């Protein structure tokens, strides 16, 4: 441990230190814990829905509340859980995997976290005040427009989107800059871990997809609050325009949940097969191909919306072809396991579930990609089953695997393997019991988003079964929380690299010091910790000469990761927090009056100015360490 570095890079203590924190590990953990909180909240909403649907003509939940429940469930899972939890993983792990002391824009990362938190809290406060949105997480107009959704409910939904866009875009910018400029010397693009590749691809997708929903939701807010007619067919607007804009974002969004899932898989499988990943170049190209194709299939959400036939055929082909890059990755993982020595620890179990669940979900995805089949399957419980297979199989199972895998890194302790295996089997069985019957319900004609159904259609048995599955899932979640609590209170400290993994995050203490690495390593291989023993280096294996008294980091070139220059990083500051509060006042105020945009921009401008105001003491310090080469 280096006390001087520790002092330089630590967040200040105390309450004001709590609000000034900019350490990427602190922010990353806050993201993860907050996202898990929203995951539990949305899960409870889903449990309520399953209770309502367990019997036909049930009166536990009325239609008004039910519509809020599924809207809140979808909005929370997509915007407040799935995307932020992946960004939290990236913010925590990327600098450690890249051999860096920080993310690229630490204050902005703190700001993006506060914006995310405040947006989520606003949505839940509205829900508990009975002004929760009720037009679906997709908010189709005209239903979500001013005429058919009077009141403030949909405005809160649209503003939640604004918060998520802002925080998601800022986090994406941080990820891109960190990956491209803060890699340890020698970590060329061709040596980057697949995890990093996947997070980079995801961040670029966010950058290109988010503006579409930003445009869409801004036009919706204008229609609702100012009286424009973007979506009003009676005044020359167009109801289908919303669907195009929303799905142009909405389909890539599925992939910025799914690709980080692939990132976890490609990290866990080589470690527990005790060998490097098979087919690295194919894996990287497959990730990039997925990202490109993901922008070419939004119309498959709208096949029933009366569009030209030829155009739809194009989207069928694109939707089916996106299966190929995923197939390539699946085959490469199987080859890796085939040629490896397997260690079936809990993270590996969760990853293996991917092959069962995601593959099934991907194949039902191929079914709904076909226009004629989609005419029948669209907006039925078949699609509910499909999307949960894809998102839970492709993202949540690998996410739990990742949680078990990196928990020792986060805390310095292990989670119980025994409880972990119990949790895995309960979750897996509960998932299948809850979601498999929905395929059959959809084939029997049960539409989505219905708060009840008649008794004489034969849908009651399968619905009851599905609700029982939800109970099993809930018990597995309880077990998960218990496992984390027990580990924090009871487990003994574990070795620094308990899984014997090959990537750089395991080359430092667990949990890592504030400064991450005593010295920035020099990278010569894809799995530096495995391959270090192969050829003892003749050159030095770490960087020297970085200042220890101020926050100095080494910036490298984007492709070859050659040392480029030294950059001084900002110190902790409370202004990102205050700026986030000011922006929140602006966003929430604008739900009630357009004038909030004018008046509340004043505190925003002041807070942001003070955020960037140079401090004399710091400038002197920075000048003092400038040396001529």
């Amino acid at each position, binding site marked *: 441990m280096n006390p001087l570095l520790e002092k330089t890079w630590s967040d200040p203590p105390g309450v004001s230190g709590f609000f000034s924190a900019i350490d990427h590990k602190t922010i990353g953990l806050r993201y993860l814990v907050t996202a898990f909180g929203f995951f539990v909240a949305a899960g409870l909403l889903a449990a309520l829905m399953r209770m309502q649907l367990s019997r036909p003509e049930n009166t536990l939940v009325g239609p008004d509340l039910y519509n809020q429940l599924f809207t809140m469930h979808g909005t929370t899972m997509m915007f407040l859980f799935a995307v932020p939890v992946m960004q939290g993983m990236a913010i925590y792990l990327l600098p450690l995997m890249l051999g860096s002391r920080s993310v690229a824009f630490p204050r902005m990362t703190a700001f993006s976290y506060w914006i995310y938190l405040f947006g989520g809290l606003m949505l839940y406060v509205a829900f508990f005040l009975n002004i929760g949105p009720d037009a679906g997480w997709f908010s189709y107009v005209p239903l979500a427009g001013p005429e058919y959704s009077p009141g403030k409910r949909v405005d809160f939904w649209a503003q939640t989107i604004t918060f998520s866009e802002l925080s998601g875009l800022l986090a994406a910018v941080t990820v891109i800059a960190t990956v491209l400029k803060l890699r340890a010397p020698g970590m060329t693009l061709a040596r980057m871990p697949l995890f990093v590749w996947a997070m980079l691809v995801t961040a670029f997708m966010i950058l290109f997809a988010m503006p579409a929903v930003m445009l869409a939701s801004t036009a919706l807010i204008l229609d609702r609050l100012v009286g424009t007619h973007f979506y009003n067919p009676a005044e020359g607007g167009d109801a289908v325009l919303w669907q195009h804009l929303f799905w142009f974002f909405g389909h890539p969004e599925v992939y910025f949940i799914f690709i980080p899932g692939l990132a976890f898989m490609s990290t866990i499988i080589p470690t527990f097969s005790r060998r490097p990943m098979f087919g690295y170049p194919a894996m990287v190209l497959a990730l990039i191909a997925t990202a490109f194709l993901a922008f070419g299939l939004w119309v498959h959400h709208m096949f029933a919306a009366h569009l030209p036939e030829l155009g739809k055929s194009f989207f069928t082909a694109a939707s089916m072809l996106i299966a190929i890059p995923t197939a390539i990755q699946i085959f490469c993982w199987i080859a890796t396991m085939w040629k490896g020595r397997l260690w079936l620890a809990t993270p590996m179990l969760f990853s293996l579930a991917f092959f069962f669940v995601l593959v099934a979900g991907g194949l039902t995805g191929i079914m709904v990609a076909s226009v004629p*089949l989609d005419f*029948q399957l669209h907006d039925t419980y078949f699609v509910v089953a499909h999307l949960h297979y894809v998102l839970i199989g492709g993202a949540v199972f690998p996410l739990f695997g990742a949680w078990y895998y990196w928990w020792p890194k986060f805390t310095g302790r292990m989670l119980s393997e025994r409880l972990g295996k119990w949790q895995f089997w309960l979750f897996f069985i509960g998932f299948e019991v809850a979601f498999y019957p929905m395929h059959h319900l959809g084939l029997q004609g049960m539409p989505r988003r219905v708060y009840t159904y008649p008794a004489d259609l034969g849908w009651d048995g399968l619905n009851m079964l599905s609700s029982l599955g939800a109970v099993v899932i809930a018990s597995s979640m309880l077990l998960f929380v218990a496992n984390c609590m027990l580990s924090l209170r009871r487990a003994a400290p574990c070795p620094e690299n308990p899984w014997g993994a090959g990537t750089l995050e395991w080359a430092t203490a667990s949990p890592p010091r504030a400064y991450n690495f005593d010295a920035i390593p020099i990278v010569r291989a894809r799995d530096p910790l495995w391959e270090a023993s192969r050829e003892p280096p003749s050159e030095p294996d770490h960087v020297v000469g970085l200042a220890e008294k101020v926050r100095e980091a080494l910036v490298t070139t984007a492709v070859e990761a050659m040392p480029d220059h030294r950059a001084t990083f900002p110190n902790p500051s409370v202004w990102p927090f205050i700026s986030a509060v000011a922006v929140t006042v602006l966003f929430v105020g604008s739900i009630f009056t357009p004038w909030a945009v004018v008046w509340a921009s004043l505190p925003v401008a002041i807070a942001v100015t003070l955020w960037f105001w140079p401090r004399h003491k710091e400038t002197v310090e920075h000048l003092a360490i400038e040396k001529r080469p």
Partner: protein
Amino acid sequence: MLDAAGPQAARVLDLWWLTLAICLLVFFGVLLFCGLALWRAPKTQGPAAPDLASLSMAERGPRAAVAVAVAASTGLLFVLIIASFVADRALANMGPPDLKIELTGHRWWWEARYDASDPSKTFATANELHIPVGRTVLLELKADDVIHSFWVPNLAGKKDLIPGRTATLSLRADRAGTYRGQCAEFCGVQHAKMALLVTAMPQDEYDKWAAAQRESAPEPADKQQARGLELFVNGTCAMCHAIQGTPAHGRRAPDLTHLASRRTLAAGTLPNTRGHLAGWILDPQGIKPGVNMPANPMPPEDLDALLAYLEALK
């Protein structure tokens, strides 16, 4: 969807079985190889030293296996794309229609207008379609307020009803029977209770049914029914509902000219019986919360009269 009663649904069902077969093949293929890998690879308990042989030696076998697997999946996908395209073209070519029906989606009921182009033959009904067996029917789909989606799984796939646009859907029933359909696009608080029934009947029965529907409502047969009509026309009912042959011409709610001939009330929510009709008139919000129809409290003798009149609207 699995019980096709017309050529549209049958086409989709054929494609479904083909797709299901190919997908099951792929699913079990992937699981088989995954399972084999799990079974044959040596096991370890703990962080054994990594095997770095693959870094210095090309892995020919696995590379060939992955290439073959990718080629096979691409081939199967192309089969599916072509099959889907062929089925889609067939669905779009149903030939000229024998009957045109204009179907409008409202929150939360269906308005059907038969032969709208010919004023002498046109008539309106609600929440029920009757079609002749073996004839191609062209539905012109419109929406009055928000987006709805027409879906009768036994007959055809769904089609959205979008405000400001007119969509069309051709379908044909080859088997007589009654098929249930339901709105498939979330349309607000009572999306769940927006069903309709499509009854396919032989041509001669259909002609008889259509002729009866074209008639105006029968005159009240007795004093009680006459009182019922008076209540309907002078009360709140006529502000939204129409009964042809009377002064009631409201268009915001279902046309009730032949209410008693229908099988359900409130868009498939209740069976059409005297008791349910009474409950619905008195307290629609209790049955379908959020529906646009207000509660209509009235003395028992007025209710009896109103019911007697409505029950006579065969």
